[in-house]
C-alpha cells in the first residue's frame, strides 16, 4: 500500500508542492534566523578564538567580556611570568582608538598591541605582507574588511566604493603616523570595527596617556600542566582573573546573552518562525488529509486496517518532511554561502541542523498525528454518501 500512499501524495502536483514548500519555508526560517543569531554571537568572542596560541588569558578580575578592558600595570606581567607552570607570558594591548582617514573623517578602530619580540597574539591569517614586518617603524597590519570598507580611501568617482588601503599606505592614529605593512584576514567582531595590529610599545604610544595600559597577559602553560590548576594558581597568586580560552569565550558569550537584547529578539524571531512554519506546514498537511478523507474512507470500507492507513500517512509525512527539510536547510546553506563576503553574521553548525531536523520532524509528527486521529475516527459509511 506504500506506493498508493505516495501516489495519493504526489498525484496532485499543486498540493504536493504546496506541502513541500510549506515545510521548506518552516525549515528555512528555523535555520536561517538561528544561523544569523549564532553568527552574531560568535562575533562577540571572535577575537579570542582568532588568538590561537595562548592557553590562558589573564586580566583584571572585574572584566566581564573581551571588550570590557580594565587595564593592568605592566608589573603584573612579571608576576604572572613568575608563577610555576607558566611556559611564557606575553603582554597584549587592546583598545579603541580613532584613526584619521585621508578624507579627514575619523573611524574608531580596534587597536591590538602585540609583544614586541615574539608578536604573539597576531592575526590568524596574513593575506599580504608578513607579521614580522611589524618590526619596521610606524608599521601596522590591518584587517582586509577594514582596509576595503571603513578605512578605505575616498572613492575616485561619486557613488563608487572606497579605494582599499594597501601596503605602503598610511593613516593617522591619535596624531601618530601609521604605515600599512600587511593585510590580514580576521573574523569580524561584534561591532565590526576595523582591527589594527601593531607592537605593544607602539600601541602604547598611540593610546592616550594612562598609568595602566596592559589589557591582557597571554599565558602558555608548560607542557603537561593542568590548565584549570594553573588558572587557579594565577588567580591565587596575583588576585587577577585568569581564564582558559574556552572559559573566556563562555564569559563573553554569557555576558552578551545576559545583558543584551539579542537572545530575546532572536529567540522571538526563531519562535515565531517555528510557529508560523509549523502552522503553515501542519495546516497544509492536515488539509491534504482532509481533502483525501473520502479516499481513506474508501480504503477503510474495502477492508484496509487503521494500522495500514497510519503507516500510509506516516510515510507521506516522512517523505514531505524530509524533502522540505532538505530544501530548507539547503536554501539556508546557499544563503550563507551567498552572503559569505558580506557583513552578515552567519554560522551554521551541525547542532543547528539537528535542531531544525527535530523541529520539522515535530511539525510533521503533530500534523500526521492529527490527520491519523481523523482517519482512525473516520466512519467508512461516508463512502455511501454522494
Amino acid at each position, binding site marked *: 500500500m506504500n506506493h498508493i500512499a505516495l501516489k495519493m501524495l504526489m498525484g*496532485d502536483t499543486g498540493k504536493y508542492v504546496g506541502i513541500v514548500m510549506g515545510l521548506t519555508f518552516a525549515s528555512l526560517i528555523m535555520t536561517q534566523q538561528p544561523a544569523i543569531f549564532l553568527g552574531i554571537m560568535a562575533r562577540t568572542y571572535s577575537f579570542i578564538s582568532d588568538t590561537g596560541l595562548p592557553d590562558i588569558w589573564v586580566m583584571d578580575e572585574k572584566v566581564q567580556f573581551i571588550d570590557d578592558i580594565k587595564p593592568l600595570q605592566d608589573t603584573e606581567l612579571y608576576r604572572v611570568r613568575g608563577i610555576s607552570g607558566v611556559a611564557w607570558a606575553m603582554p597584549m594591548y587592546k583598545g579603541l582608538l580613532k584613526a584619521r582617514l585621508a578624507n579627514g573623517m575619523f573611524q574608531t578602530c580596534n587597536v591590538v598591541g602585540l609583544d614586541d619580540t615574539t608578536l604573539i597574539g597576531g592575526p590568524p591569517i596574513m593575506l599580504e605582507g608578513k607579521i614580522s614586518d611589524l618590526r619596521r617603524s610606524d608599521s601596522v597590519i590591518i584587517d582586509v574588511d577594514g582596509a576595503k570598507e571603513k578605512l578605505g580611501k575616498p572613492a575616485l568617482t561619486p557613488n563608487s566604493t572606497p579605494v582599499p588601503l594597501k601596503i605602503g599606505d598610511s593613516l593617522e592614529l591619535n596624531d601618530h603616523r601609521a604605515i600599512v605593512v600587511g593585510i590580514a584576514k580576521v573574523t569580524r567582531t561584534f561591532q565590526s570595527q576595523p582591527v589594527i595590529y601593531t607592537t605593544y610599545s607602539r600601541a602604547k604610544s598611540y593610546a592616550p596617556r594612562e598609568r595602566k595600559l596592559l589589557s591582557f597577559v597571554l599565558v602558555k602553560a608548560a607542557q603537561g600542566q593542568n590548565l584549570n590548576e594553573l588558572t587557579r594558581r594565577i588567580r591565587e597568586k596575583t588576585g587577577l582573573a585568569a581564564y582558559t580560552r574556552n572559559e573566556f569565550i563562555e564569559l563573553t558569550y554569557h555576558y552578551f546573552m545576559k545583558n543584551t537584547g539579542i537572545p530575546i529578539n532572536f529567540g522571538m524571531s526563531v519562535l515565531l518562525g517555528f510557529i508560523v512554519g509549523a502552522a503553515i506546514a501542519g495546516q497544509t498537511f492536515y488539509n491534504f488529509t482532509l481533502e483525501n478523507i473520502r479516499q481513506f474512507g474508501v480504503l477503510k470500507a474495502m*477492508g*484496509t486496517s487503521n494500522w495500514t492507513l497510519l503507516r500510509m500517512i506516516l510515510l507521506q509525512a516522512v517523505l514531505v518532511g524530509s524533502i522540505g527539510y532538505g530544501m530548507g536547510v539547503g536554501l539556508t546553506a546557499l544563503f550563507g554561502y551567498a552572503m559569505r563576503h558580506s557583513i552578515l553574521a552567519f554560522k551554521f553548525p551541525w547542532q543547528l541542523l539537528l535542531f531544525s531536523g527535530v523541529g520539522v520532524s515535530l511539525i510533521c509528527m503533530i500534523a500526521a498525528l492529527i490527520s491519523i486521529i481523523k482517519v482512525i475516527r473516520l466512519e467508512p459509511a461516508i463512502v*455511501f454518501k454522494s
Partner: protein
Amino acid sequence: MVAAVRCEKLVKIYDTGGQKVIALNGIDLSINLGELMMLVGPSGCGKTTLISVIAGILDQDSGVCELFGENVNAMRSKDKLQFRARHIGFVFQAFNLLPSLNAAENVSIPLLINGVKRAEAERLAIKVLEQVGLGDRWKSFPSQLSGGQQQRVAIARALVHSPRLIVCDEPTSALDHVSGHNVMTLLKEVALHQDRALVIVTHDARIFEFADRIAQMDDGHVVKVT
C-alpha cells in the same frame, strides 16, 4: 437456495444531537446466492443504512445480520475487517476511484488489501478490466475516462478479489440512460453467478428490470418484496 444475507429484526438508531432517528426499524430480509436484489424506496427510508450494515461497515443496535451464515457484528474488529476485505465488493454512486491511480492500480486495491503482491495484483486487475471491456484503458486515470467507463472500473474493482457479495449504492444515478443500462448489463452478466449475490440500492426505475427481487423500503421497514 442458500442465503447470502439474512437479516432478522435489524434496528439501527442514529442519535443526531439528542434527537433519535430510527433508520432501521426491525428489518427482516434475506438475499440468496445467485440473486440480484434491489433495495428501493424514498430518500431517508434506510436503504443506505441497510447496505452499510449488510456490508459490515456499520453496526446495528439490535437484531442479527448474517453473511454466509456468519454473524459479522459479533466478530472482533480485525476479523470483521478481514471478512469485509475478502468477501465483499463495493460499487459506489460517485465511483470513488482514487484520482492519482490509473485504472489498473485502482482495480488492484482490494487485492493489495488482501496481501497480493503489487505486480500480481496489477496483472489480475488488467485481466478483470478486459472482462469489463476496458483492457486497452488500464493505464488511463479516472479523469481521462467517461462516467460510464469510471463505473466499469469501479465494477472491476468490486470483482477483482472474487467476493461473494457485491453491494452497489446507486450505481447508475450518475450515468445517462445508455451508460446505466450498459453498467447493469455488465453487473448482471459478469458479476452475478451462483456463488455470489448482488445488493443494489437504487432510485432508478429504469433498471428495475434487471432485479431478481425488489425490496421496497419505507420509514425503516421493508414494506414489500416482489
